[in-house]
C-alpha cells in the first residue's frame, strides 16, 4: 500500500512518446491490475483451501486403495496389526522372530482363507483393511519413543464381523465340494460367515502361491467364489420374476395355471419342470413354492420387460456390489426386444443371466429386511492393541429395492417354499425358515448347480444366507442340507 502512495508522488514524465500512460484519474489508475491481483488471490486461496479440505475429508478414503503401493512402504516402520473374529479370536497375526523377521500367521488355516485373504496378495480383509492394519494410533510421542528405541510401532487391530462357530460349521458342511456359503445379518449387513471352496492354507502361500496362480479357473483355490464366482441363478431368480409379476398385475392373487410337466411356446422351446414333475393346478404362491417351470417360463410374456430390466438393475444387476473386497458384477441383459426363448429361459433364471452368490444373498436379505438392502460389511471396528476403539463401522443402507408390502408377499411365498414346496429340509426344524431353492443347468450334462437362499426366523429375521454347490457335488443331497448345518450352529 505504501508503495502505491509513493507512486502517487510521481509525475508524468515530460515526453513526446505517445505510449506513456496518462494517469489523470489518480484514484482509478491501478484498478485493472488490482482486479487481476484479486482474482489470483482468490484462485490461490481456493487452491490452498481445497488442499486442506482434501486432507481433512477426502484423503483417508482415497488412500485406502489396493493400488496405493505407498501403504506397503509403511511395513518398514510398522508391525502389521491383527485381524480378529467378532469374539476376539485371532484370524491373522504377525509373528516376529528374534532376528526381526516377520511372518504373517493364520491360526485357523484354511477355514477363513478367502474372506481374511492373503497379506502377500492383499486380498480379502487383508487388502480391505490394509491401511488400518499398518496405521498407528497417531500418538507422536509414542512414535518418537519407538523411533528412539529402534523398535517398530504396532499397527491397529481390525475386529471383523465374522463368527468362527458359523464359519467352521459352513466350512465343514461343504466337505470337498466346490461352491460357497455366506451368511449376513439382514438388518445391518454384518457378514457373519463366508466360505468358498476349494480352499487353501494361507500359511503355505509363501511356498505355493505361484503354483496356485496357475490353476484353471474351475479349479482355482484363490478365487473367492462367494463374491467373484458368477453362476446362473436358476430358480432363485424366480424371486425377481414373481416380484415383477406382482408389480405389473394387480390381480396376481387370481393367477392360475395348469402344469403338465412341461411348457411349449410357439416360436420358442419346450421347458420341462424339474424331474418332469407334473404340478397340476397352480396359483402364483404354489407355483413359486413348487418352483414350477411351466408357470415361470410363460409368465414372462405378461411382464413389462423394460420395467423388469429396471427392477433387476435396482436390485444391483449390472452394478458393482461395492462391498470392499474383490467381487464380480452380476449381469442381466433382457429388455423389451427379447426373443421368445430368451423370455422363457430368463423367467426361470437360465439364459444369459449371471449372478454372484454374494449378490443373491443381498437380494434375499433385502426381502428379509422389508425391502431395504443393507451394504454388507466385514469390519466392525478398528482398535488399538490395548483394545480402545479407534473407529466403528455404522450399518449403511445400500438401496431401497421394494416396498415393505412387496417384501412381505415374497417373504410369505418363501415361507411356503419351506412348508409346502421344495424346501423340505426345514419342514421340521425348531426355527422357522423362509427361502428359495434353485437348480441351475450350466452345460449340456445332467449335472446342475444347487442353490439355496433364505433367512430365519421367518417372523424376525436374524440371519440371511446363501449356499451354492457347484455341479458334481457329492456327499450331500443339495444346498439345503448345508444351509441347515449353518442354521443349526446359529440357533444352537
Amino acid at each position, binding site marked *: *500500500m*505504501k*508503495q*502505491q502512495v509513493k*507512486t*502517487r*508522488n*510521481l*509525475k*508524468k*514524465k*515530460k515526453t513526446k*512518446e505517445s*505510449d*506513456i*500512460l496518462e*494517469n489523470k484519474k489518480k484514484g482509478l*489508475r*491501478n484498478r*485493472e*491490475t*488490482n*482486479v*487481476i*491481483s484479486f482474482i*489470483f*488471490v482468490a*484462485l*490461490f486461496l*481456493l*487452491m*490452498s483451501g*481445497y*488442499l*486442506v479440505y*482434501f*486432507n481433512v475429508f*477426502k*484423503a*483417508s478414503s*482415497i*488412500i485406502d*486403495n489396493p*493400488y*496405493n*503401493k*505407498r*501403504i506397503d*512402504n509403511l511395513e518398514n516402520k510398522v508391525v502389521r496389526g491383527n485381524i480378529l473374529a467378532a469374539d476376539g479370536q485371532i484370524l491373522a497375526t504377525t509373528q516376529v522372530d528374534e532376528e526381526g523377521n516377520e511372518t504373517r500367521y493364520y491360526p485357523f488355516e484354511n477355514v477363513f482363507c478367502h474372506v481374511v485373504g492373503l497379506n502377500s496378495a492383499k486380498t480379502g480383509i487383508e487388502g480391505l483393511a490394509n491401511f488400518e492394519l499398518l496405521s498407528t494410533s497417531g500418538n507422536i510421542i509414542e*512414535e*518418537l519413543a519407538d*523411533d*528412539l528405541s529402534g523398535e517398530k510401532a504396532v499397527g491397529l487391530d481390525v475386529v471383523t464381523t465374522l463368527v468362527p462357530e458359523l464359519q467352521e460349521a459352513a466350512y465343514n458342511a461343504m466337505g470337498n465340494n466346490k461352491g460357497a456359503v455366506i451368511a449376513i445379518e439382514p438388518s445391518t449387513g454384518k457378514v457373519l460367515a463366508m466360505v468358498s471352496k476349494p480352499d487353501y492354507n494361507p500359511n503355505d502361500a509363501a511356498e505355493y502361491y505361484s503354483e496356485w496362480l496357475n490353476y484353471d479357473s474351475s479349479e482355482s483355490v484363490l478365487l473367492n467364489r462367494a463374491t467373484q464366482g458368477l453362476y446362473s441363478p436358476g430358480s432363485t431368480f424366480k424371486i425377481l420374476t414373481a416380484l415383477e409379476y406382482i408389480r405389473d398385475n394387480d390381480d396376481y392373487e387370481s393367477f392360475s395355471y395348469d402344469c403338465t410337466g412341461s411348457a411349449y411356446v410357439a416360436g420358442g422351446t419346450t421347458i420341462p419342470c424339474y424331474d418332469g414333475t407334473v404340478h397340476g393346478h397352480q396359483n402364483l404362491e404354489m407355483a413359486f413354492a413348487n418352483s414350477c417351470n411351466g408357470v415361470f417360463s410363460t409368465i414372462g410374456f405378461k411382464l413389462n420387460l423394460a420395467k423388469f430390466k429396471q427392477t433387476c438393475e435396482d436390485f444391483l444387476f449390472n452394478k458393482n456390489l461395492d462391498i470392499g473386497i474383490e467381487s464380480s458384477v452380476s449381469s442381466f441383459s433382457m429388455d423389451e426386444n427379447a426373443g421368445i426363448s430368451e423370455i422363457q429361459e430368463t423367467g426361470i433364471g437360465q439364459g444369459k443371466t449371471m449372478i454372484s452368490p454374494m449378490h443373491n444373498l443381498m437380494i434375499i436379505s433385502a426381502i428379509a429386511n422389508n425391502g431395504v438392502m443393507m451394504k454388507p460389511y466385514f469390519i466392525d471396528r478398528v482398535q488399538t492393541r490395548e483394545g480402545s476403539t479407534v473407529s466403528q463401522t455404522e450399518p449403511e443402507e445400500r438401496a431401497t429395492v421394494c416396498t415393505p408390502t412387496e417384501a412381505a408377499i415374497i417373504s410369505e411365498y418363501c415361507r411356503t417354499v419351506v412348508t409346502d414346496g421344495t424346501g423340505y429340509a426345514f419342514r421340521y426344524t425348531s426355527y422357522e425358515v423362509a427361502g428359495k431353492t434353485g437348480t441351475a443347468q450350466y452345460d449340456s450334462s445332467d449335472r446342475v448347480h444347487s442353490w439355496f437362499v433364505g433367512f430365519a426366523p421367518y417372523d424376525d429375521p436374524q440371519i440371511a444366507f446363501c449356499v451354492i454347490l457347484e455341479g458334481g457335488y457329492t456327499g450331500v443331497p443339495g444346498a439345503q442340507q448345508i444351509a441347515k448345518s449353518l442354521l443349526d450352529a446359529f440357533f444352537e
Partner: protein
Amino acid sequence: MQLIFIELSKYAFAFLICFYAAAAYHGAVIKEEKRKFTYVFQNVIMFMIHLLGFLILYQLNNEELKYLILYFAQFIYLFVVIFVYDVLYPRASRLLVNNMCMLLAVGFVMIARLDYNKCVKQFIIAAGGTIITFFIPWLLKKVKSFRNMGWLYGFSGIALLLAVLFCTEVFGANLVLELGPVSVQPSEFVKILFVMFVASMFNKSTSFAQTVKVTLIAALHVLILVVSKDLGAALIFFVVYLMMLFIATKCFWYVAAGLAVGSAASFGAYKIFNHVRERVLIWRDPWSTIDTTGYQICQSLFAIGMGSWFGYGLGQGLPDKIPVAEKDFMFSAIAEEFGAIFAVALLLICLNNLILMMNIASRCKTLFYRLVAVGIGVTYGFQVFLTVGGAMKMIPMTGVTLPFVSYGGSSVVSSLIMFALINGMYNMRQDEVEAKNETAGKNKKSKKEKNKGK
C-alpha cells in the same frame, strides 16, 4: 537416530517455510528502506532449508560425497545470484529475487532426491540461464525499440509453434524440438514472445481494428496449441490474452465476450478432439481407469493424501511412483514428503511473486511495460494454478510445470527470463523516479504538482 533426524526435519521444514512466507508478505507491505532485515532473514531460511535437505540426502545415500559437492556448488550459485542482483541492479525487487532462489532451492532438493543426475543437469542449465538473464534488465533499459517489434514476436512465435506441431505430427516428438544434443520445448519461450507481441501491438494502438487483428493472431496461437495437444499452454495463452486485453482497453465487455467465446470454443474442442475429451474423463473419474489413463492422477492423489500435514519426511515416501513426478507432478511429490503445510506455504510464495509482478505493472508508466508485466504475471500465476490444481484433481490435468521447482531446462530458463524482465522493470521504474526528482528540482511547475500529489 537417522529416523529421528528425518522425523524432526519434517517439522523444521514446515516451520521454516512458513516463516519465510510470512516474511515475504511482511516485506511487501513495509517501506523499502526497512526491508534489509527481511532480506537477510529470508536468505538465512532459504540456505537452512537447502542445507537441511542436502544433509538428509547425503545421509540417506550412504554419505556419498557427490551430494555435498552439488550442495556447495548450488550454495555458491544461489549466493552469487543474490549478490549480483544486489550489486548490478540494486533497484530490482530483492523480494522477487529471494523468492526465485527459494523456489529454485526447494526444486534442487526435490529433484536431487528423485534423481541426482537430473539435479546436476537442472543446476547447470539454471546457472547458464541465470548468467544470460543477468543482461536482460540492462538490455531492457538500453533498447527502447523492443516495443516496436510486435509483428516479429508474433510471427516468430507462430513459426516456432508450427515447427513443433510439424515435428510432433511427423516425428512423433512430444512437444519438443531437437537441436543437436539439446531438446527444447518451444512453447515455454513462445509464452514470452506472445506476451511481448500483444504488449507491443496494444502499445501502438487499442483501436477496434487493432484489437481485432491482435485477437485473430492470438486465437491462431491457441488453435495451434490445441491441435498440438498442448492444452495447458493453450489455456495459459488464452487467459493471458484476455487479461492483457482488459488492461489495454479497460473494457470489461471485451473480457466477457472473450470468456463467452472461449467457453464455446472449449465446448467445441471437447466435441471435436479426442484428447480433450479424454482429459476431462480422467478428471471426472480416474478410478475406473486406474490401470491405464487414470494411473498418474490416482498416484498423485495417493501421494498428497499419504503426505498429510507434515509429510513423510524427505526420502521416506514414494514420489517416484508417480510417472514424471519431477515435471508435471512436482507439487504432489513435495506434498508427499514435505506435507500439506509446506505445500500451502509454497503456494503462498508463488502468490507473493504474482502480487509483486502486478505491483510493478501498476506502477509502470509506459503501456508496453505495464502490459508485459501483466502478461508475465498472469502467465506465471495461471501456470501455477494449472499444475497445482491439476495435481490435486481440482481441475483437469493439463501437463504444465511448476516454475523454478519442476525439472526441465526450457521451463527453468523461460521462468528465469520472465523474472529478469520483471526485475528489469523494477530497475527502470526507480530510474524514472530519479529522473523525475532531478527535473523536479529545476522545474517549479512540477514541484507544485508534487506537492499536490501529497
